[in-house]
Every structure is written in structure tokens, then in C-alpha cells.
């Protein structure tokens, strides 16, 4: 870069950019200057004064001892960070810190050789010993003390603060006796996460961190993301699970709980168990962030309930078997279907790309079937519309660009729950003043951050989008010249928009003003992004909603530029990869159509086989219907999908029950496994190798963190290879994932330039850590930045593609659709005349809260049932009256509140986020993270309670 400047730190020359602070430059270059309050990714705070240095610039010595974290680097600057004066200053501060921190071991010269069970020669009590502190090996404070070579004796008196431990919240403990008040946790929570669930308290020598009135984290608005723990330099904040365990090794991999693709460093203890997850700071998608699922959702990896052996149903009972027995049996039952009839494969949403590839190859060439899908494909319309309009079935831009958007529109997605880390840049942008428009009937967390919350009547979502689009046109906010060049004819669309009259707009339940404001906010922004889900949108209009969103982006030229674009919130960890590789119906690897002769010929050439003639190709939903009707008799189902039981796939379980032969491959004896004929034990993501493609099209490596011990579990890729062998199918081997990726690249144009070699080569060395350079725990394991590759990447020389369509559309012009903007009525049942739109509320006025401490948190609070005043009158309910909200499955009581902002026919309820955490903590489920309830709209009625 021409703008680079050079500074020297203790004689080491460093290149950096102007405006960077000296400390930041030093960290980037791997040069250690002590620091305790600064943390990469946050603004400097300038409190600990550990980073003081001597600095000389062109005007001579900078007066005093400037703090490197707030000293802007200038060209030619010379820094001395280890002069006797500077270290004396640091030691003086450290002496005082030690005097208010358990310190027995801190200044002991034996600290490096002493173990927890050694007899302490200095008679230090257990509570004061670092060797018994959960953060011991990750403690930056201790490392800094060692770096400074502190004296054994301190001239200051030590006193223990005697603050009771906070141990009653889910997931993590707080011991403020160890807190050094560096403020990292508060700043991480506020600046990075936008939550402010913890805060500074008091001042002077009493300054500390805590929550309002000392309330529990459940009540304070905490989302249990763990960001505060990850940045805490000492043992004040620690994960509760495996609290005392120390890491023996660490492995970088990807969290597979959702498609954000957060890079994680998994800590593994001497027994080979994963004990903690620390999100990677230098990762492009998550940049050091995670969510409660990725951070704390690891217990299933080591659960005692894991399946260890293959099971075969004999006499109605699942009995242990060997792999040979199980595979032989499966092969035998599959053989009759090799002609292609009556068989289907459903893989998991968290299979690797390589496994998807094998699965589809196995299906296409081995089984002659196109009934092939993954269980995360419950909302194919999410990307179908996108592909039809623009050309590619994936997000157009990168997650981290959201922070730089000039306006963000979020449509029907509870993403802070389902794709949590996508919410991080959105909340940051909103905090920095970027307009945020949320369209959702439900109250979701983001509505709290939104400048504008449009709350359509359920079923009116498409019409609302049409009304916004029409307003954009009416107000002349369209980029007509660009449209003429880049967008196909759209007269039909204009005609459809003409039909939206005042009355139609009014029927959306959203006021004219709000529609106009939303249109202006989105259309007048330079780079506006759309982040969308299809939660609760009636199936009849899901595709049209996506098309309408695409049209909105086209009309306002919000595609093809950084900060703009559209982001579909896909449903499973690697559903993007499944789409790309062709593990979906009607497609072949590379995403090309199955029914296109040319495309088939292309694939046949690479595979060196001829594909069976194409026939009907069913997706997961169709397959389940076919199973129910008897058209499909045998199925192979991989993965522990909650979608079989949560209603998204109808009564999936009942359908599976109709099969003649069901093979499942699972980590646990999940509901489908319980009814299977053969159950194959499946490894977890932490035990296998391969690649995942996240929702921003980024192909990233996962790596085995655990060795599979006392356990026969295998990866499904291996199973496909084994079955292929038994069924005489050539060209299917799972031995070498790297070779598989090469094969994928040869047949999948989007992945043409991707190889394991290149993924490794393009990760860059960031820094080296050692005893002499203590790092924040998040940086502790960071030696490489792994950027992955964003497709399209057709050749080995193609660059990664952070933004799609910046050079135009693959088909020349974008093809806007022309949906019929209409309202879908929810089927109303006389018993349930209204629709319940549950919401997530962090702060509620006038509430009574009662927190019981004990083993668990129990929160009793008054629920608010918000109704439109007209409905309240119509149902004969009065404001403030106790009522019950009754749905087919639920009966919730609360207090009725008339509220104009609630559309007629809708009942809104506040649902405390904490209940979720409560549920997670109390759940019997081995992997409750996967089954976190969404906020589904349900038909309901409201009736008075206890009226005489």
C-alpha cells in the first residue's frame, strides 16, 4: 500500500497505516507491548496505563509517557516500550492491582512449575492461588506480572473484596473479586454486541462492573453470547461448564449450529474432550463473535447418550451390531432400488460439501434416483427467487459489510436468535445511526433497535412490499438509466404495482406514513441491504416476497455494490453448500438443472459415466409426502433434524413411519432413529474434516478437533463410500477430502478454483504468541487468519468474490419478476379467531419480577397481552384485565393491554428471552441448541380469566 508508514518499536521496524494507534500497529505486527484494557476490535479506553511508552516523533520526544493504545502512529516515529522508567511505571500500577487481587501465586517464582496438587511452600490459601483459578492458563494479568518480573514482596497491604460470587445465571459465573475493572466486558457488550447488558457501577475505588440493581443477567438483557468472557483478561468471567479444566490442545474449526459459519477455536483437555469454544478474532464472518449456541452449545459432543455402535432392529428392538452387519443389511435393502424407484435420500443440513458431493453422486450414478435433498431445505424459496432474478442462489454480499450499509431492511427474520452473529454488524450499524427498518408482525429483538418497525397483518407481507415498491416509483426514487441498461423489461411488474390502490395499502395494516418512510429510508440510501427470512410468511407467497425484495433492490440499484445487496437467512449450517453441490432436487453438481441435456453431458464427461435418464426429482417435503402415500418405500436419512418434529415439514415423523425400510444416521437416538430399521452412529462436526460454505458463499475448512474414542461413529461420507463398494458403484471414495474438493472443483464452476492447498496458502500468518507476549484469550490461539474463499471462483487464479454482480449479471440483465401483490388470509378457525404473534422483549415497563436464586433461575413475571383496542372491545375485554391466550397447544395467562400499534386480529405477547435460556438450562435434551423454539405465529383466542 502506498500509504503505509514505518514506525520502530524497540528497534523493530513496523509498517502500518496512518491513523492506526501504536499499540494496534504493534499487535498487528506481532510485537508485544503490555496492555490490559485495550482489546482488538474495540475502541481504545486508555485506563490501565500498562501500554505506556516513550515516543519520539519528528518534533522530538512526546511529553510524558503516552499510552500506546491512544497514540496515533506517524511516519518515522520511534517507540521505546521497555525503558526502566516505563517498566517502573507499569510495576507501580501492577503493585496496586496485586494488592486488590488474590495474589499468592502471582509473585511466586515457582508459579511456572507449581501444580494444583502441589503443597504450597508459601502457605497461600487455596482461594488465593492461581493454580486453582479457572482462568489460570489464559490469564493475561498473571502473564503481565511475569513479564514485568514483579518482586516477591509487595509494600502494599492486600485485601480481599469479599464480593459474593454470581453463580445463578445460565452458562457462566462472575467472580468480581478477581475483576481489575479494565472495562473490556462492558465495552464488548455495548460497543461490539450492542446489548449493554452489563455496565460500570459506582466510581473511584468502588468502580466495578455489574447490572442494574444487581439483577440477574437473564433480566438485564444478556443474550449469553459470551463475548464478555472471551475478552476478560482474568478469571472474573468464566464459562461454568468445565470451569476448572485446562486446555491441552486447541483446534480451529467452524461452528455448525447455523449457516453464519463462525470460526471457533476449540479447547481440548488431556482426556481429549472439548471443554470450551473461543471464537476466532481474525475470522472474516464472525470477527471474534459467537452466540450462545456456538459458545456454549458443546455439551452434546461429549454426551454420554451418544450413539456408539450401529443398531439393527431385530424383533422390533434396536440391537447393537457391527458395521459390517449393518452396512451389509442396508446394501441388501438398497439393491432392489438401484433402478431408481421408491427410494430417496435425505442428508443433513450440516454435512460437509464433500459429503454432499458423495451423497448426490451415490444417488445419481449408483441408485439412479433424483430423490435427493437435505433436511434443512425447508424453505427453498429463500434463494429460488434470488436466483431467478439475479442469477445466483446465494447472498449477494458479505456479512461484515452490513456494518457499512447506509440502510438495513430486515424482513421476517428473527435473526438474532437464528443467525445471531449476522445481528452483530446490524446492531452496530444501528447504534452508529444507520437507519434500520424491520418488517415483522412479531416483536423480535431487532425491533428494539429499529428506526421503523412495520407490523403488517399476517399474510399481507407481499402486499406491503408491493406498496413500498410502488411508493419508491411514485416518489421518483428509481435509478432509471441503470435500470434501462441492466434490467429486463418490467412492464408487467409496473402494471401489477398500478393495481395497488389506497384501499389495498390500507389493508396491509401499516400506515401510509410508515410505508412512505420505509420506502424513502431504503431508496435514498447509497447502499442499502436487505436481510430476509420467510418466517411465518404463508407458503403461497414466499417466492413472490423474495422476488419483491429483489425488485426493490433492482429499482434502487442496491445490488452489485459493497454495503448493499440481499442476504437470505438460510436454515442450516451448510445448506448453501448443498445447493451449490447439487444435493437438492432437480439439480446436478454446480447447481445446473438436471433436466438440461447439455448440463447432464457436462457432468457425465467429468464422471466418465452416463447418467440414467432423468425422472421425477423430489425434495424433502415431497419425499415425506411420498413416503406417507407409499410411493417411496425405502429411505436413507442422515442427521438429527429438528425439522421432522417441529412442524416445518408437516408431520415428518409419521411419514417416515410408513416406510418399509428406514436407515438413519444420527449422533443420538433421535425421534427418526427410534423408528428406524437400521441406525448408524454419526460423528459430530468436531470429529471430521472437510469444508462448509456459509451463507455469504464463503468456503471454509472444518477440522477434526476430537479423536473418536470408545466409539464406532463414522461420517456419512464414509458410509456412502462403503455402501458404494458393496453395491458395486465406482468412483466414490471418502479417503481424501482434499481430493474430493478437487473433483468438486472440476465439476462445479463456482468452486473451480478452490482447493485445500489454496485455502491453506491464502491464510496469512498473523502473529505468534508466547510467554513473553500475553494475548487476550481470543488472540491466544490466533496464528493464522483463515479467510476462506467466496464463490464464484471459477479458476485457480480467480479472486474471492465478496460482492456479486459488481460487473453485471451473469445472464446479461436481471429479470425482475411480476408478482401479483395479494393478501393471503390465514385459515381462520372459529375456535381461534385471532393470530398470536409472540415477541421478544428485553425491557418491560410496570412489571413485577421475582427472581429466585438456587440451582436454577426461575423468573415469574407478568405477561402482557397486547390487543388492538377495537378487538379488545369486540371480545369484551378491558384494559388491565387478566386474560388467557389459548392456542391449539398452549395456554398462557397475562394482562390485557389495548395498544393501537397492534393490527386488528393480532394478539402480541411479550416473551422474555430469559425463558429461552431457562429452557436451555433445564432441558433434558442432549442438544437443546438445535431445538430452540422460533417465534411462530399461531392461531389463538383470548378469553377473560377468573371473571365471576
Amino acid at each position, binding site marked *: 500500500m502506498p500509504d503505509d508508514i514505518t514506525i520502530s518499536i524497540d528497534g523493530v521496524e513496523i509498517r502500518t497505516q496512518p491513523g492506526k494507534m501504536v499499540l494496534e500497529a504493534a499487535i498487528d505486527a506481532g510485537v508485544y507491548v503490555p496492555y490490559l484494557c485495550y482489546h482488538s476490535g474495540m475502541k481504545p479506553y486508555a485506563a490501565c496505563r500498562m501500554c505506556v511508552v516513550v515516543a519520539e516523533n519528528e518534533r522530538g520526544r512526546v511529553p510524558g509517557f503516552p499510552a500506546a493504545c491512544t497514540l496515533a502512529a506517524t511516519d518515522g516515529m520511534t517507540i521505546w516500550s521497555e525503558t526502566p522508567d516505563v517498566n517502573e511505571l507499569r510495576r507501580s500500577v501492577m503493585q496496586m492491582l496485586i494488592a486488590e487481587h488474590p495474589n499468592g501465586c502471582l509473585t511466586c517464582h515457582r508459579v511456572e512449575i507449581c501444580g494444583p496438587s502441589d503443597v504450597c511452600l508459601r502457605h497461600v490459601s487455596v482461594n488465593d492461588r492461581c493454580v486453582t483459578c479457572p482462568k489460570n492458563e489464559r490469564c493475561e494479568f498473571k502473564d503481565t506480572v511475569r513479564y514485568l518480573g514483579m518482586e516477591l514482596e509487595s509494600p502494599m497491604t492486600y485485601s480481599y473484596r469479599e464480593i459474593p460470587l454470581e453463580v445463578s445465571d445460565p452458562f457462566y459465573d462472575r467472580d468480581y473479586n478477581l475483576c481489575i475493572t479494565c472495562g473490556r466486558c462492558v465495552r464488548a457488550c455495548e460497543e461490539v454486541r450492542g446489548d449493554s*447488558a452489563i455496565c*460500570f457501577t*459506582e*466510581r473511584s475505588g468502588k468502580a466495578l462492573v455489574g447490572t*442494574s*440493581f444487581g439483577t440477574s443477567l437473564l433480566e*438485564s*438483557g444478556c443474550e449469553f453470547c459470551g463475548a464478555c468472557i472471551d475478552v476478560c483478561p482474568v478469571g472474573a468471567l468464566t464459562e461454568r461448564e468445565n470451569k476448572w479444566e485446562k486446555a491441552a490442545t486447541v483446534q480451529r474449526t467452524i461452528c455448525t449450529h447455523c449457516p453464519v459459519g463462525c470460526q471457533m477455536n476449540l479447547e481440548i483437555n488431556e482426556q481429549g474432550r472439548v471443554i470450551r469454544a473461543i471464537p476466532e478474532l481474525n475470522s472474516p464472518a464472525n470477527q471474534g463473535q459467537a452466540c450462545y449456541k456456538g459458545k456454549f452449545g458443546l455439551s452434546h459432543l461429549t454426551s454420554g447418550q451418544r450413539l456408539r455402535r450401529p443398531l439393527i432392529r431385530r424383533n422390533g428392538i434396536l440391537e447393537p451390531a457391527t458395521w459390517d452387519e449393518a452396512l451389509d443389511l442396508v446394501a441388501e435393502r438398497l439393491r432392489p432400488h438401484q433402478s431408481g424407484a421408491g427410494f430417496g435420500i435425505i442428508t443433513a443440513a450440516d454435512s460437509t460439501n464433500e459429503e454432499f458431493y458423495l451423497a448426490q453422486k451415490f444417488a445419481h450414478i449408483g441408485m439412479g434416483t433424483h430423490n435427493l435433498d437435505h433436511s434443512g431445505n425447508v424453505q427453498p424459496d429463500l434463494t429460488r427467487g434470488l436466483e431467478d432474478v439475479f442469477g445466483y442462489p446465494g447472498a449477494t454480499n458479505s456479512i461484515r459489510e452490513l456494518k457499512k450499509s447506509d440502510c438495513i431492511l430486515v424482513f421476517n427474520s428473527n435473526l438474532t436468535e437464528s443467525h445471531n452473529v449476522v445481528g452483530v454488524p446490524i446492531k452496530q450499524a444501528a447504534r452508529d445511526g444507520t437507519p434500520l427498518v424491520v418488517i415483522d408482525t412479531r416483536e423480535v429483538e431487532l425491533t428494539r433497535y429499529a428506526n421503523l418497525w412495520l407490523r403488517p397483518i399476517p399474510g399481507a407481507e407481499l402486499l406491503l412490499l408491493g406498496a413500498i415498491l410502488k411508493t419508491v416509483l411514485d416518489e421518483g426514487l428509481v435509478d432509471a438509466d441503470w435500470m434501462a441498461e441492466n434490467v429486463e423489461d418490467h412492464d408487467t411488474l409496473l402494471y401489477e404495482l398500478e393495481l395497488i390502490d389506497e384501499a389495498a395499502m390500507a389493508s396491509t395494516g401499516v400506515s401510509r406514513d410508515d410505508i412512505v418512510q420505509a420506502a424513502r429510508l431504503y431508496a435514498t440510501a447509497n447502499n442499502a441491504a436487505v436481510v430476509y427470512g420467510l418466517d411465518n410468511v404463508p407458503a403461497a407467497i414466499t417466492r413472490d416476497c423474495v422476488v419483491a425484495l429483489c425488485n426493490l433492490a433492482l429499482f434502487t440499484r442496491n445490488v452489485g455494490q459493497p454495503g448493499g445487496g440481499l442476504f437470505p437467512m438460510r436454515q442450516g449450517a451448510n445448506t448453501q453448500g448443498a445447493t451449490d453441490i447439487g444435493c437438492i432436487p432437480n439439480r446436478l453438481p454446480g447447481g445446473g438443472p438436471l433436466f438440461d441435456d447439455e448440463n447432464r453431458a457436462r457432468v457425465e464427461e467429468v464422471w466418465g459415466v452416463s447418467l440414467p435418464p432423468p425422472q421425477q426429482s423430489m425434495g424433502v417435503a415431497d419425499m415425506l409426502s411420498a413416503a406417507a402415500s407409499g410411493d417411496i418405500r425405502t429411505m436413507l436419512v442422515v442427521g438429527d433434524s429438528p425439522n421432522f418434529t417441529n412442524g416445518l415439514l408437516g408431520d415428518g415423523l409419521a411419514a417416515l413411519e410408513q416406510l418399509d425400510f428406514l436407515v438413519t444416521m444420527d449422533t443420538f437416538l433421535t425421534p427418526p432413529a427410534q423408528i428406524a430399521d437400521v441406525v448408524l452412529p454419526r460423528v459430530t462436526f468436531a470429529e471430521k474434516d472437510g469444508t462448509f460454505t456459509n451463507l455469504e458463499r464463503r468456503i471454509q475448512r472444518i477440522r477434526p478437533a476430537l479423536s473418536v474414542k470408545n466409539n464406532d461413529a463414522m461420517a456419512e461420507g464414509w458410509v456412502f463410500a462403503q455402501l458404494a463398494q458393496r453395491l458395486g458403484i465406482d468412483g466414490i471414495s471418502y479417503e481424501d477430502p482434499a481430493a474430493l474438493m478437487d473433483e468438486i472443483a472440476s465439476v462445479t464452476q463456482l468452486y473451480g478454483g478452490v482447493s485445500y492447498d489454496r485455502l491453506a496458502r491464502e491464510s496469512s500468518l498473523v502473529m505468534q504468541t508466547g510467554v513473553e507476549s500475553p494475548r487476550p484469550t481470543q488472540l491466544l490461539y490466533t496464528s493464522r487468519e483463515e479467510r476462506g474463499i467466496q464463490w464464484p471462483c471459477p479458476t485457480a487464479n480467480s479472486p474471492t468474490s465478496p460482492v456479486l454482480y459488481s460487473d453485471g449479471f451473469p445472464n446479461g440483465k436481471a429479470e425482475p419478476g411480476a408478482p401479483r401483490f395479494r393478501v393471503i388470509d390465514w385459515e381462520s378457525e372459529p375456535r381461534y379467531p385471532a393470530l398470536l404473534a409472540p415477541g421478544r422483549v*428485553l*425491557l418491560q415497563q410496570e412489571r413485577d419480577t421475582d427472581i429466585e436464586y438456587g440451582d436454577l433461575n426461575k423468573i415469574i413475571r407478568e405477561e402482557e397481552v397486547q390487543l388492538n383496542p377495537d378487538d379488545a372491545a369486540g371480545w369484551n375485554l378491558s384494559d388491565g384485565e387478566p386474560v388467557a391466550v389459548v392456542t391449539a397447544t398452549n395456554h398462557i395467562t397475562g394482562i390485557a393491554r389495548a395498544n393501537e400499534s397492534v393490527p386488528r386480529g393480532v394478539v402480541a405477547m411479550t416473551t422474555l428471552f430469559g425463558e429461552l435460556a431457562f429452557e436451555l438450562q433445564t432441558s433434558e435434551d442432549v442438544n437443546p441448541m438445535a431445538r430452540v423454539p422460533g417465534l411462530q405465529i399461531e392461531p389463538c383466542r383470548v378469553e377473560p380469566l377468573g371473571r365471576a
Partner: protein
Amino acid sequence: MDAATQSLISDAVNSQPQSTVTVLSSLLAVEDAIGYIPKEAVEAVALQMDATINDVWAVATFYPNFRFVPPTEHRIEVCWGPSCHVMGADRIIAAAQDSLSLSDEGDTPDGKATLRYNTCLGACAHAPVMAIDHHLAGRITPESAREKIADVLRSAASH
């Protein structure tokens, strides 16, 4: 919380005279209106300022003028700033503690009075200074301090 106090809180928060309304200005308004910051006030301010309860708490606990339990009937402040210290503030504080049967600052158990130490009441030329219900009294002696406190407690008793 009774409805009257609740409405005092929302009035205080919603009708501030100045145009720059902040978390701090709202807390000060509540303090003026009801003499303390209950949980409901923290929530009201958070809601109004689009902040979280913790953002508000951070501010409220920083400034020692805020209290979080209802005020007593009378507030007795004694200055211990250097001007007053030089003029014998120690003895005034001792006298005040004694008259109120308190061993430190705080509320009397009967809820009649609060003793607070103040770093400077701003009337240093009249040192030593105390303030009873915000009325300053200068050149206090231990005796006059006792008398004034006794007067106040008497008037409290006659309520």
C-alpha cells in the same frame, strides 16, 4: 409502586425544561421530583432515552447524589471539604452522628432523617457548613449542630 409516584416519575422524565435531554438530566429530574431513583425510574429513563437499564444504572451509581431507596423526612448534610475541615468539620460530623444515633452516614432506623457527608457545600467562607433540607447554615458549632438537628427531629415528630 403507587400510581401517584409512577406518574411523578413520568412527568419528571417527560417535561424537562431544557432542550438537551439525557440519561443524567432525566435522573436528576426524577431525583428532584421524588428524592430517589427507584427501579421504575431506571426503567422509565431507559425507555425514554432508548438506553438499557444498565446504561442508566451506570450513570446513576456514578454520582453519589442519587439514592435508591425512598428518602427520609429530613436530609442533613455536613461538609467535610478542606475549608470546613480546617474550621472543625470533624466535630460537627461527630455531633451530628451523635444526635442522630448513627455511626456513619445513612438513614436513621426510624426513617426520620438522613445524614450525608458532602465534599463541599459551596459556602466555604461560612465554614464549617451544614445543610438541613437544602438550607445552608454556616459557622456551625457542635452545639448549634445538635440544636438544629433537634429542631428538625422535633418538627418531624410533630408531623
